[in-house]
């Protein structure tokens, strides 16, 4: 309805810098024009996106809780929990698919950055779920961010796994040396 060319404050329903950056990094070495064209294409994939990637969930947050919050933006068509690819247990992310693009945008605006299960969650527009994407891509099966995290996060399995292993090793070696 608005005739405005641009908004006087930023919009919260844009794809994140992560999405744009991911595509940029990938084609760092390609020819400029091609790069530009593909970047446009990758953003246009989101023009009718009805799916959201949801991050920073606690490992203990259930589908029902996610449903309860996200249904406030519209009926949910599908909810895919992110799983540890070895244990098949929740690993702190999910995909929420709505019936309409508008519902997905509204979710970015109204739910992204608010709390679920007492954690600030992150939402990002996503071109759509594909089989395989529900699994963590980290070395030990979970999300990459949970490999090297140096902070203790009780909702996400304590310390990062790789970091924790290294810490354990160092502690053991130190003990053995004494």
């Amino acid at each position, binding site marked *: *309805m*608005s*005739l*405005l*060319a*641009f*908004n*006087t*404050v*930023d*919009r*919260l*329903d844009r794809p994140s810098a992560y999405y744009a950056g991911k595509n*940029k990094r990938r084609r*760092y070495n390609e020819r*400029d024009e091609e*790069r*530009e064209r593909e970047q446009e294409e990758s953003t246009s994939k989101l023009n009718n996106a009805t799916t959201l990637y949801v991050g920073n969930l606690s490992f203990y947050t*259930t*589908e*029902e*809780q996610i*449903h*309860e*919050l996200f249904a*406030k*933006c*519209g009926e949910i068509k599908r*909810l895919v*929990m992110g799983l540890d690819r070895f244990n098949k247990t929740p690993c702190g992310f999910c995909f929420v698919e709505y019936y*309409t693009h*508008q*519902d997905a945008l*509204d979710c970015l*605006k*109204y*739910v992204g950055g*608010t*709390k*679920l*299960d*007492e954690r600030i969650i992150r939402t990002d527009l996503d071109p759509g779920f594909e089989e395989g994407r529900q699994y963590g891509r980290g070395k030990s099966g979970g999300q990459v961010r949970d490999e090297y995290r140096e902070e203790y996060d009780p909702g996400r399995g304590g310390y990062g796994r790789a970091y924790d292993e290294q810490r354990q090793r160092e502690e053991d070696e130190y003990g053995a040396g004494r």
Partner: protein
Amino acid sequence: MVIEAEEEEEEEEEGASAVTEVNDDDFDRRPQRRRYEEPLFVQVRRQLLTIAESAARRVEDDIMGVAKSVAENYDDEELRDTFVNISLELVLEQPMKIPFVAAITLVAYNLKAELGAEVLKKAGAALQKYIDSGSWREVKLLLRFFGGLQPLFEGDGVFPLLEELFARAVDLQTASSEDLLGLELVKIIQFTIPYVMVSPAIGFESQALALLEKTDIIASTPHALVDLVNTFSPDENKEASGPSVISLLQNQLQGEASAGWELKCLPRPWKGVQEIEKDEQDPNQKPFEPVNKVSFPEINVPNPVPNGTRPLFPEVYISVYANQEIDTVPPPSDITSLLLRDALVDTINLLDFNRVATAKFLIDVDCYFTPYTFVKRATPFDRMRDLAGEGQSWKPEDIAVDAVFSQLYQLPTPEHKLVYYHSVLTECCKIAPAAIAPSLGRAIRFLYNNLETMDLELSNRFLDWFAHHLSNFGFTWKWSEWVDDLDLPAIHPKLAFVHGALDKEIRLSFAQRIKGTLLEQYIPLITEGKEKDTPEFKYLSEMTPYSKEGQEIMQLIRKKAGDEEIQPVIASIEEQAQSLGVEDPKIPSTDALVTSICFVGSKSLSHVLSCIERNKDRLLAIGPVSERARCQIITSVMEYWSDQPGIAINIIDKLLNYTIISPLSVLEWALSESLDAGTVLAKSHIYEMISATVGKVTNRMRQIVAARTQSGLYEPQLSVLDETLARERVEMQTLFRFIEDAIVSVASGSNDELMERGDGSGDLPEDAIIRQWGRRWLRVFRRKGAVEEAFITDALANATPVGTAAPPAQTDAAEDAGDDGDIKIADADEQ
């Protein structure tokens, strides 16, 4: 601080063009040098965008600064365009800044008439477009802007256009007593007048008064629909049901007219500028009375005027701070109440794409009105007592929170999804917790204390918001306040609220966590069953009839057995039931099947969905054979999850999508089978389930209407869609009639079960409460029914009539529109 901000701004400006180069100089370790030169248009852009935002700067200086920069560099096209565009964008997106933008335009006109004329030209073009598309809020904002520029115009300036709008309103009102567009036009006229009167123009009192005398007839006549959208039904609470906004505003304006248009909350930033100007220039010159005035832009108001996409309803004024021992917000008799409300509500609804910015504007509301309108931020309620009295000022936080609640409580529906308004309140609390939290506390108290008479739709919105809000703030609430209410009967609206709120909190979290946030007295409300992830499977007990078969079915479903294995067990139950003389043997077999599905699928929603999916055909076959068995599907789900009704209604929702159960069967289950003398009406999850079910039907109806009314549609598709629409419309009406018939007896106390309660006198204290629940339910669903009927009628009024054949050249379009009568749903708005 300021320097940092400038740097950021510059980065942002460059960002767009330099996206691909950002990483190129990874190896360039030279210290970043400060860049001092910023293009002028960037500087002006920032100054303009942030006008009046800082209490630390004199806004007059910024007004002068911007106008001068642009006027002195009139040849800089980029600068000029930036100035003109951003001025209008601010008018249309940040209404609280309109008086300041108008002041800049006034000064700019004074310094360089061509520049001012450019703004006027563009604003005029925008106004025309918005009138043509029926975007009345935008029209209101642009007229407000023009009103602030009144001294620039020849003759009566903005008044003739207001008169013309009034003439249209009269036409509309004369044509139909149900007309709402005319009321909207009157509202626009009313809200424009104050801004004309605080402009530097003088001598327009008689025009304003003449206009007000005219609007009085329309504004003061009560509209039939006002009662329908009132926060409190006049039947339940005559005193609390508020007046319509236009009738209230009419009185306020008449009061202002007789008090010389004091309008003490509205800023007059041009006055400060005038002072500066006087110092610098000839003291006798009147800065805002230009010698060469311009004519008001030529605006054509179509007849009849169109309405935009949003259906109109009357608005009522509601404040969650009414009847406090000390007033913290302006009373409805003071025009300050509506002027602030109007500007805040528009800000909230226009900026839904950035709730953080919205919250910031709400917190900063005191920057945009006269300083003496408000007390200092975060003034405690108790301190307000000392400040009360003549020339009282108001609490900015309360005014901000009040405005958000007015939208959360908008009937029949607010402009945006309810969760948007939740998120604005959350952000406000994040920005200024110490200031906002106590205001929210008093709002909650008001709403809680008025639960009994409040519109039922709204008390459920309150419930939903309350639980969601607490979930963002560690579930902390002063439960001690309501301890005494725990002794009320379970069906009392207050205790029903507490029950409902705790259930909703649990749904967003988990029972044990919520238990930990409660006082001891509340612990019994969190039953043992609520803490169980997997409710018991009743067939495990040998006391349950058909327990052996129930267990067998459960095992078969667990190992994903095929139909050929399940069927014999089902048949065995039915045979036994038959021999026991059970009237409908399908009922016990359905119970065993559905309870087993619930149990096996209890791990998560996707588990239960895949169980349903695997047994879909069997489930789908139940309804057509036996209506009562179909009802049993619902009973089994609701019983299995009786301690966690949130999960139950979620499953019911999915079963509706699969058409395993029908909307009518859900209504029958709740309002007939489970009515329980009407006490079921006190359960918030039942209301939620019925609303969701009805919502599903009305949404579908609206999609069909959208398909039927899309342009470029011809025969034979027109007739096909028309038939679908007629059929579905009848079904929708059946649903509403069912609700009406089921509840009307509860509301009137003539329900059989209700009459048999206690001594049968119908005089038990609880009987009165039950009747009240009945009346409140009726009100909500009668309104929903009326709104949907009105929507369909309105939409069809402009639809291509049935029988219209495609013009020869456009056959392609018709074919596109839908083959084989398939309903093509083009972007049907979920509203």
